[in-house]
């Protein structure tokens, strides 16, 4: 299908402000009378603070007020609290203090006195599951929120569970969550080759370049917050809850966000601190967050300790899979990566039978949150190299075994065997293999040049790519312009505008006549889900489509009302509504908008659908009378799990003497439905590739095991990829096939290319070493050197966070 706007490049309106420095992030705003606050980070990994004495701190000249754990809105454990006198990791905010400037704040914080009882702590889920192991929390050691919630509890395995596992193998005691389908035992019995591997994937920080600074003030009964979040509308109800006000009492401004990657997808507790302090002291308050503090409160990806058994038929088909994952959740409820990892295995490899078990364990380390492909991308790093191992054992080509087990349209996901809406993995593999010259490159595998050896690899990953049921809101003003009101945030994907073009497309508008209203509650925005989970290009394609369709229906009704006939007798051409039989009989968009205002009622937002969210209702009500209003809840048919995939191909050169590698080429191919914005898609595929390289070979969080102190609180320590780490040649491509459940065929893509790139790099590194499986991320130079020189590794197989 040919579109006017979709599939074509455009210059997003915010990119100019980004290159000129005019883009204003939270720390760039100044309010008259603004003062500063800082939080006091816990120096203990786990403690009970029996008493906090701020009397001396409050005497410091310039101090304006303090916020103590008892002063903030309570949050039900084990969700992360705003402030706590029972800190559960080093860096957790205990209290916050405001003063006229930051130096005074710091002077005062140094005068706070504590009566503290240090508590036992743990940085290793396996240690916590041990019969005599410490709990990270006073109220338990196991639990998680979300769709597969596990109630907060204390769970210990037996000595026997640990003893049975065997050296270097993951013990598999009582799980907290499990599911299965098919006859797993029979599957293993019928297998020609069965592997059983234990593995570790590291936690790593999000490293958003903008630390989560926020600014708040109160004016005329409303609380104004400038925050750093990757979502806009979705943040409002939760942040209002943290502040203790109603959502419509909050004005939230997040026009720009300096990176989030999942850690700023929803409201987060520290976002409320300036608002609460501002209410208390009656001054605008800014909380600048330092880089070290960003490592404390900026979350991290969940780490896994796991074990997977896979049985393959002689033809390479995966007959049975049995996976156990211990998820390290950090100190509080964060995310449910272990559930997602199971879904990823089930969909990407289509095992004929599968069992999954898991247990989410708290540790005394930073709160975890989703990080780009939470669960799906960690498990890709483990499973793709294992697929290579099976291919080698069975004498099957690595590309072939991926095609043999690939999902197709209608393939099933997870325990409930829900279908995917579309899957073009084989197309992506074939397209990538052809462009990458897989056959030719494969022949180079193992080629030596002095100490350097060539390795090639293929990696793939999956992520769900859309939700449904949110609202759209568009407005044609009496100057004929189309205003697309969007609650999508500004994560840097430009999908606030990409999805707005769905509405423009539906109404055949020229893009020059469209205005994207976003980034500030005062722009009257609809209820949209957050900009996370690779969902925007699907979810808000639907909302903008239904809003545009509502507008279109009203335009035709007005034409029929004024010019006679039935609404169906009319069509549009981008500037006017005309009678199909007599094109000369028409109303311009300007005339229609003016008539909508005159006719009132539903045409101009004075009567609204009953099923829209209160936020959308309030926004549409505020806009009523300003033009023709299109507003609707997305009730389009739902066809299963919207699925996005990516396949990556890598060739690298590994130096066996230094352990360093150079990625000669990385090609990432996305299966992302109809392409909205080719350049935007390309930047997502490339950015995800760079982050993939980063989690595969560079990043992890690390602690001092004796005191629980983090050793990863500088960029130079935690080492996200730089210009010097990226592939020399970075290429992208895509399968431009529409998803049938999306009005114009679009679906998301943000996350899968990260896991695809990461796993392709790991496969290529293993290939360069002659078929090694690392079963661990990240793979760093010391591991390569140890393996190449046949020396013992510097870490134990299941060791986490301390090596």
């Amino acid at each position, binding site marked *: 299908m040919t579109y006017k706007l979709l599939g074509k*490049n455009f*210059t*997003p309106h915010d*990119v*100019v*402000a980004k*290159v*000129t*420095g005019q883009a*204003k992030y939270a720390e*760039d705003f*100044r309010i008259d009378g*603004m003062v500063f606050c800082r939080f006091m*980070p816990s*120096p203990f990994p786990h403690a009970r603070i029996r008493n906090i004495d701020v009397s001396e701190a409050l005497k410091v*000249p*310039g101090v304006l007020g303090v916020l103590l754990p008892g002063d903030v809105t309570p949050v039900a454990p084990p969700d992360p609290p705003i402030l706590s006198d029972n800190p559960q990791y*080093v*860096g957790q905010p205990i209290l916050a203090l405001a*003063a*006229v*400037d*930051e*130096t*005074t704040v710091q002077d005062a914080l140094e005068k706070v006195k504590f009566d503290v009882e240090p508590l036992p702590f743990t940085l290793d889920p396996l240690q916590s599951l041990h019969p005599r192991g410490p709990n990270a929390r006073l109220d338990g050691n196991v639990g998680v929120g979300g769709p597969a919630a596990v109630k907060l509890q204390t769970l210990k395995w037996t000595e026997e569970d640990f003893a049975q596992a065997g050296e270097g193998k993951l013990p598999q005691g009582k799980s907290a969550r499990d599911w299965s389908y098919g006859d797993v035992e029979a599957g293993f019995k019928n297998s020609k080759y069965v592997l059983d591997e234990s593995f570790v994937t590291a936690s790593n920080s999000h490293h*958003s*370049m*903008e630390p989560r600074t926020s600014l708040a003030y109160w004016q005329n009964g409303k609380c104004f917050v400038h925050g750093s979040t990757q979502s806009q509308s979705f943040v409002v109800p939760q942040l209002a809850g943290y502040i203790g006000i109603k959502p419509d009492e909050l004005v939230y401004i997040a026009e*720009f*966000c*300096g*990176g*989030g*990657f999942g850690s700023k997808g929803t409201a987060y507790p520290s976002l409320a601190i300036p608002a609460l302090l501002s209410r208390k002291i009656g001054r605008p308050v800014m909380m*600048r967050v*330092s*880089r*070290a503090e960003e490592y*404390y409160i900026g979350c991290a990806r969940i780490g896994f300790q796991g074990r997977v058994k896979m049985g393959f038929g002689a033809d390479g088909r995966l007959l049975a899979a049995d996976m156990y994952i211990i998820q390290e959740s950090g100190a509080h409820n964060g995310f449910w990566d272990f559930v997602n990892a199971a879904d990823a295995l089930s969909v990407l490899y289509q095992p004929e039978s599968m069992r999954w078990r898991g247990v989410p364990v708290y540790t005394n380390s930073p709160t975890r949150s989703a990080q780009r492909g939470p669960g799906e991308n960690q498990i890709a790093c483990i499973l793709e190299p294992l697929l290579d191992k099976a291919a080698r054992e069975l004498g099957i080509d690595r590309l072939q075994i991926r095609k043999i087990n690939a999902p197709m349209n209608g393939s099933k996901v997870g325990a409930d065997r829900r279908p995917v809406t579309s899957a073009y993995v084989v197309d992506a593999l074939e397209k990538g293999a052809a462009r990458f010259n897989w056959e030719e490159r494969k022949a180079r595998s193992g080629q030596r040049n002095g100490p350097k050896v060539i390795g090639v690899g293929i990696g793939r990953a999956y992520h769900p790519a859309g939700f449904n049921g949110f609202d759209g809101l568009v407005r044609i003003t009496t100057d004929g312009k189309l205003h697309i009101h969007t609650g999508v945030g*500004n*994560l*840097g994907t430009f999908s606030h505008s990409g999805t707005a073009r769905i509405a423009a497309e539906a109404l055949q508008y020229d893009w020059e006549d469209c205005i994207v209203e976003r980034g500030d509650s005062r722009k009257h925005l609809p209820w949209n889900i957050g900009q996370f989970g690779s969902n925007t290009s699907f979810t808000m394609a639907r909302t903008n489509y239904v809003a545009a369709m509502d507008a279109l229906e009203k335009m035709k009704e007005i034409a029929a009302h004024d010019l006679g006939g039935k609404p169906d007798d009319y069509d549009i051409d981008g500037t006017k509504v005309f009678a199909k039989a007599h094109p000369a009989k028409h109303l311009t968009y300007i005339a229609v908008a003016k008539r909508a205002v005159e006719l009132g009622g539903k045409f101009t937002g004075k009567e609204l659908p009953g099923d829209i969210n209160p936020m959308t209702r309030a926004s549409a009500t505020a806009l009523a009378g300003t033009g023709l209003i299109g507003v609707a809840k997305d009730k389009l048919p739902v066809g299963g799990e919207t699925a996005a995939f990516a396949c990556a191909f890598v060739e690298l050169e590994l130096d066996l003497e230094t352990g360093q590698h150079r990625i000669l080429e990385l090609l990432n191919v996305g299966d992302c439905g109809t392409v909205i914005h080719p*350049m935007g898609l390309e*930047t997502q595929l*490339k*950015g*995800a590739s*760079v*982050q993939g390289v*980063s989690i595969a070979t560079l990043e992890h969080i690390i602690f*001092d095991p004796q*005191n629980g102190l*983090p050793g990863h*609180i*500088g*960029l130079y320590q935690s080492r996200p990829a*730089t*210009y*010097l780490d*990226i592939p020399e040649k970075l290429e992208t491509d895509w399968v431009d096939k529409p998803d049938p459940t999306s009005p114009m065929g679009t679906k998301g893509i943000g996350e899968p290319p990260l896991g695809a790139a990461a796993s392709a790099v790991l496969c290529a590194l293993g290939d360069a070493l002659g078929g090694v499986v690392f079963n661990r991320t990240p793979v760093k130079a010391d591991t390569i050197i140890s393996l190449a020189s046949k020396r013992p590794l510097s870490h134990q197989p299941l060791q986490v966070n301390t090596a």
Partner: protein
Amino acid sequence: MSLEPSRGDEASRYSRREFIKRVIASGAVASAATYIYGGLAGCAKPGGPVPGGVERLVSINVNGQIRRVDVLPQETLAMTLRYKLGLTGTKLGCDRGECGACTVMLDDITHNSCSVLTHSVRGRKVITVEGVGGPNGELHPVQQAFIDELSPQCGFCTPGQVVSAVALLKRNPKPTREEARAALAGNLCRCGAYDNYLNGVMRAAGVTST
């Protein structure tokens, strides 16, 4: 000043504190109005410069204009630009010379402005992202190229990338891609837009050569 590795995180905060304390102890306790470093409004002590202290009111050349500004001895250029001169295009990503988001040019050479004391730039030409374009708001070819290549994603590191790229092209109008990579290596981008920034530099190099 010691980085006190045994303090873990607090390497950043307390070493900085020590640093500030020592600067203060060494001479001037100022009464300047400043957001971050002390002495704002209500708690300011009256009085002029302390004998032996550093002059507070200094002139610096920023983006071709002489700006008179009240500067504390321990004040970094990034803070002066952002909090005194309203030039918030210069971003603070780490405030310790790790990320490059605060990159500015001093006499055409890139510096991390978070790690330069404002007092040390007197007599030097400071160029920020706000000053790389033409006098009437024309974009610098690097800025236009970054738009054309859709280089920024979240955009937070972009001003630093722009300044580093402009500085590179000033001293080397026709860099190779590898030279550009080396020149921009101090500018971190977590979105991973490096390839698009390099494309932008190469495109701008083409533009500036014609």
